[in-house]
């Protein structure tokens, strides 16, 4: 593309998934695929070939156990189950016997036979219509390549080169965990968004990341020099001197800004005119709680209970769920936690047996829970049993009608009665709330509030349903506009309606962490912000820099504007007046 002498600066856009600005060389992360040669073995060397194979199995098992332990430490035990299948395959006695016999009979080298034999299974799995099965095929491929590499006695090359920006098509949770071992400057991927696991882990490990940068793998080569701007989701290839200077200044500004934010940790989220605002975090794993405490979070405004399903083949039992929820509640105490019941379906853990034309409009969230009272009751019992410290609230996802709210409440009351009859203690006054993310629920905000204790606006889905745009579809990503006038007016409506019923409203989508939205949201009367913990100090800083009076003025003005760009420009202007040094995403 470019002559090496005259490199041209190029800019790529992706999603700002984890904040920070870094400069560095690109290191392309690709899966190790070994070269396999077919060799004939003399009869006296056959035993030697089999010994090599045996050693490779042992070595591979040691490696896998190491990754499994590391995963457990970094992101929790349940996530480490993804390696269980691979370890089981290594210990498959029949497979072992078959391979040894084939080596003896055909007098071929071990890696050739291993490849031949395991690929057979792999292909059978790949041809399956079942999503779960095709995933298992990747496990089989991983374990096969690991075995072959160990037969060839090649060392496991450190999969990431130190002090580089790692670039990849996609990253699995396991790949992301391996970051923590090396000094990775940043992460860039072609697919994935802010809610993917790679993004989540990058943020908790504080690694700047730009994800979903379309076309980047074809345009950038190993060792290319780039700048990664995780604040704005920008990658710059071959930056000119001028650009570098510019970004060095931005980097310094950002670091200064971060240091100033650190000082805010123990200060309350109050406006200049003394209005205290709830400020909490969104989390998925118990391991994130230390981090949110260190960020000065007042509890958890959204615990995504799907975290307990990751790496699991089946829905965990009541006891397993109870242990997970209890750990969350205990670690969060004295603050409280809002636990969202399983929001499976859509882009999250899907039952492999249900294939849908339109998953986002399909069987997901509370619809799944209400379809199986036993499944729903199991989770409710586990949550209730974990509520003895009285610091848990329940949140229902994907509510689209009043009937769903009433039916959920009926099941909750029945579950409470059962526990009472069994003399099992729980918080009898446990609060229940509804997530407002479907436009129909937004329009029914007053009636829904009257039925429950609080509302929480899930902006990611609300924006997607309101604007009829799939946030995962890269072709229309630019239509997904959080600051669309219809979105802001809907949020204003929901807050006003809930307040009429005397109920509080929180926000738990990404919009809550968008610095441009803080002023209008406060002005609308929002009671609580629950944000990605990495963004928390920034939101706090804005809250502490403004008066409620100003926020109300901005909110009123924004409701009059009807063009997204006008809204953005106006909000940028207003924000800069109060917090001049804040980095803003374009």
């Amino acid at each position, binding site marked *: 593309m470019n002559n090496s002498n005259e490199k041209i600066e190029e800019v790529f856009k992706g999603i700002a998934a984890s904040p920070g600005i870094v400069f560095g060389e690109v290191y392309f992360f690709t899966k190790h695929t070994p070269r396999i040669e077919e060799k004939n073995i003399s009869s006296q060397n056959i035993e030697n070939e089999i010994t090599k194979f045996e050693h490779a199995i042992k070595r591979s098992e040691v490696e896998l156990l190491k990754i499994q332990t590391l995963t457990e430490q970094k992101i929790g035990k349940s996530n480490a189950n993804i390696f269980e299948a691979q370890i089981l*395959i290594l210990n*498959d*006695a029949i*497979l072992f016997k078959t391979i040894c016999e084939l080596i003896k009979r055909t007098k071929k080298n071990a890696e050739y036979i291993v490849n031949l034999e395991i690929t057979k*299974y792999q292909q059978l*799995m790949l041809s399956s219509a079942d999503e*779960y099965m095709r995933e*298992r095929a990747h496990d089989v491929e991983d374990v096969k390549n690991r075995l072959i590499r160990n037969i060839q006695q090649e060392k496991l090359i450190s999969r990431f080169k130190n002090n580089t920006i790692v670039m990849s098509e996609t990253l699995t949770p396991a790949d992301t965990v391996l970051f923590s071992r090396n000094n990775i400057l940043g992460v860039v991927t072609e697919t994935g968004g802010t809610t993917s696991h790679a993004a989540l882990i990058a943020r908790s490990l504080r690694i700047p990341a730009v994800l979903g940068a379309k076309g980047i793998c074809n345009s950038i080569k190993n060792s290319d020099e780039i700048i990664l701007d995780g604040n704005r989701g920008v990658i710059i290839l071959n930056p000119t001197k001028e650009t570098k200077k510019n970004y060095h200044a931005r980097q310094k500004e950002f670091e200064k800004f971060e240091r100033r934010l650190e000082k805010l940790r123990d200060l309350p989220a109050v406006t200049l005119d003394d209005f205290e605002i709830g400020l909490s975090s969104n989390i998925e794993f118990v391991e994130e709680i230390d981090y949110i405490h260190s960020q000065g979070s007042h509890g958890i405004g959204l615990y995504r209970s799907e975290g307990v399903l990751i790496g699991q*083949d089946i829905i965990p039992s009541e006891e397993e769920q109870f242990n997970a929820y209890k750990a969350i509640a205990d670690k969060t105490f004295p603050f409280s936690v809002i636990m969202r019941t399983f929001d499976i379906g859509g882009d999250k853990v899907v039952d492999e047996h249900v294939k849908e034309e339109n998953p986002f409009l399909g069987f997901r969230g509370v619809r799944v829970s209400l379809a199986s009272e036993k499944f729903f009751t199991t989770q409710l019992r586990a949550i209730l049993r974990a509520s003895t410290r009285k610091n848990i609230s329940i949140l229902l996802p994907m509510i689209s009608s009043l009937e769903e709210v009433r039916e959920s409440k009926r099941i909750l009351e029945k579950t409470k009665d059962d526990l009472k009859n069994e003399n099992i203690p729980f918080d009898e006054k446990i609060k229940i709330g509804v997530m407002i993310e479907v436009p129909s629920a937004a329009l029914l905000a007053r009636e829904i509030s009257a039925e429950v204790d609080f509302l929480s606006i899930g902006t990611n889905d609300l924006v997607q349903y309101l604007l009829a745009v799939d946030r995962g579809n890269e072709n229309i990503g630019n239509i997904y506009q959080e600051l669309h006038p219809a979105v802001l007016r809907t949020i204003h409506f929901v807050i006003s309606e809930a307040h009429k019923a005397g109920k509080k409203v929180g926000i738990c989508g990404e919009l809550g962490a968008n610095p441009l939205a803080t002023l209008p949201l406060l002005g609308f009367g929002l009671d609580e912000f629950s944000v990605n913990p990495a963004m928390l100090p920034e939101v706090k800083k804005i809250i502490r820099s403004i008066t409620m009076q100003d926020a109300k003025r901005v909110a009123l003005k924004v409701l009059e504007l009807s063009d997204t760009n006008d809204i953005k420009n106006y909000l940028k202007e207003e924000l800069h007046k109060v917090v001049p040094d804040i980095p803003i995403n374009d």
Partner: protein
Amino acid sequence: MIEKTITIMNRAGLHTRPAATLVKLAASFKSEFYIFKDGMNINGKSIIGVMTLAAEQGSTLALKFEGEDEVVASNAICEFFEKGFNEQL
């Protein structure tokens, strides 16, 4: 030789966890144990083989036991299938 036909009972199907238990159970018997599904013939003592079956809830498998303890083996293994691998049905 004993031949039996069974149906997968549990919701999640013959996934990794029950497959591992099944293989372990089969290995505790001397008899050969084979599973037939959709023209595939799999050694029931091999985890990679059993995983490949992708047997979901409601699918039917033919089982074959052959060896000195085939009666005990077939009873134990069929019971494991009938109980839905002791999982949620």
